[in-house]
């Protein structure tokens, strides 16, 4: 890179900052947890994960932490995703593919409304406690 001006430096900082917030988990209120056991991966959890990341960054959502976890035990409705938004009930979604993931970001994370047709409504006993 050539020598920078003040504007260049500021631009670079903003760009890199967005990239780095992905790593940082502090100041993040909402959480998306994707089940990535063998069953989840086979059912397309990776594609869903990519869709989440892509959708979050294209909408400039920075307060949401996205993490992966192991198998949640609901292998028949994989990929399963748990979404936790402050002020809203914890929700588990089943059969989350690429499209559903994008809807979750738009409707649940940003719009604060549940994606009703994909809520997994009979969670296993250990998950609902």
């Amino acid at each position, binding site marked *: *890179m*050539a*020598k*920078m*001006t*003040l504007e260049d*430096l*500021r631009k*670079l*900082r903003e760009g*890199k*900052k967005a*990239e*780095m917030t*992905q*790593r*940082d*988990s*502090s100041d*993040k209120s909402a959480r998306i947890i*994707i*089940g*990535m*056991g*063998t069953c989840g*991966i086979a059912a397309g959890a*990776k594609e869903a*994960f*990519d869709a989440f*990341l*892509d959708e979050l*960054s294209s909408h400039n959502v920075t307060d949401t*932490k*996205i*993490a*992966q*976890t*192991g198998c949640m035990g609901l292998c028949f409705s994989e990929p399963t995703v748990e979404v936790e938004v402050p002020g809203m009930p914890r929700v588990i979604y089943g059969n989350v593919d690429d499209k559903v993931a994008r809807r979750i970001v738009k409707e649940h994370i940003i719009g604060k409304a549940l994606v009703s047709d994909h809520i997994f409504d009979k969670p296993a006993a250990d998950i609902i406690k």
Partner: protein
Amino acid sequence: MAYKNYILVCAGTACESSKGVALYEALEKELKERGVEAEAQLVKTGCFGFCEQGPIVKILPDETFYVKVGPEHAKEIVSEHIVKGRKVEALLYDKGQAKTADEIEFYQKQQRIVLRNCGVINPEYIDEYIARDGYAALEKVLFEMTPDDVIDELKAAGLRGRGGAGFPTGLKWSFTKNAQSDQKYVVCNADEGDPGAYMDRSTAEGDPHSILEAMTIAGYTVGANQGFIYIRAEYPLAIERLENAIAQAREYGLLGNNILGTDFSFDIELRLGAGAFVCGEETALLASIEGKRGMPIPRPPFPAVKGLWGKPTVINNVETWANVPMIILKGSTWFSSIGTATSKGTKVFALTGKINNSGLIEVPMGTTLREIIYDIGGGIKGGKKFKAAQTGGPSGGVITEEFLDTPIDYESLQSIGSMMGSGGMIVMDEDDCMIDVTKFYLEFTVDESCGKCAPCRIGGRTNYNILDKISKGQGTMEDLEKLKDLAQAMRKASLCGLGQTAPNPVMSTMKYFADEYRAHIIDKKCPAGKCKDLLSYTIIEDKCVGCTACARVCPVSCISGEVKKPHEIDQSKCIKCGQCFGKCKFDAILKG
């Protein structure tokens, strides 16, 4: 596509020496083999401070904290955590509880300003520093502040030199700024020499750009166009990272001519020292940069007015520099809200010795020793009793149990006969003999004395000889008086800080452990059992069952006796290695 996970691998010297490099390579290979290199970014980062448990691997964004990770664990981490999202239980710090890094007790009472980027960014990549508000302070200074504003801000913040003496940084800069000269210099003292101290090394390794940015700010403030970082050649990794950082900053135009399009030009070069302790003294350091033998000269004039090649020179230590960008960015009010009345901000300590969690810690000034040792350090190794902590290295003194609750700052440490120093903190337990420890420090200063002035050269050696005599049981009570007189002379007449402070360990231990000195001199005993000449091992006849375990382990075969009959130690041959003592299952060997 953004990464799903970030694997932060510690690449500080401490972790590198416990196979950190091999671990990094193994992780890299494994990510490739499993075809997930596009999903997880491997980041080589600076010291996490938790060196006791190294190498450390932190996985983000879920904040998993893995400890004592070896190359052999790479496969499991990748296949379990990265591919399947399952934590590797066996490598977690607190197995089962899966605490995130922030929840671990070691980090609870810490506040990281100097080490803000250590263990967070990749120190070899300038963009990550910039993303964490790097060079934003320089930006602010160049475009919004006058040199006087910068000095006022530092004065208001109350930043004091972290190299040991605690001189107000803003005042120092103002001397150089106000000095008239065609040429001025900025120097970073990275010649960390205290035994057991490594905070400057870790800062340079983990966040080199913070030093460069601060020095550039100083250049603008005092009107200098050239900076030097004086660092010991014994820190190869820090040198490599600093060189890399300088090259990157030059490429971006953050060093060199017309920085960020302004008229201000500034550049930095490294100067390598050969690792002499005296070169940490500022005038000796400057002499060494000039290519002369590293020996101090009398002050005044101070380097701020007449320094490198006779020109006004700002010289600060690494930790002081690392504080500067944060003060500019967050403001003096924020900075001065941390710490005590006279000492603001935080202090980094290298916690070592008989402590459970040895490592690099940063705490607000005013934290008590008890908090550092018991809350952060996790207490004394093996559940033994705390005896003392040595701060300030060979120039400092001991802090004893009665001062455990004293808030630590420059003044409080001085008032109890120790000093802040650069931040080495060595914890000692009941098995440490204070005479032995003091002898170690004196030996160090005798070794490192440059020999230019007589009080340090001769006084130090005489001091050492007296202590050596005491440790062999040949001391007299008059010797204690002699030690005091010598200390007085050395403090007053030595040319530089090395000689002036060399008697501190003796004076401090004589004050707080007078009974231990008496035991060595009058009773000819070493209560801790460290001084070999005052130690003997004997077998208690009644307790010995004649199992021969001691005789078999003795390396000089000085234990004799028939099987199932009491044994005996030949004192003339015994080398006091203590192996028989450790081996006996019947408490039949007496140490004393």
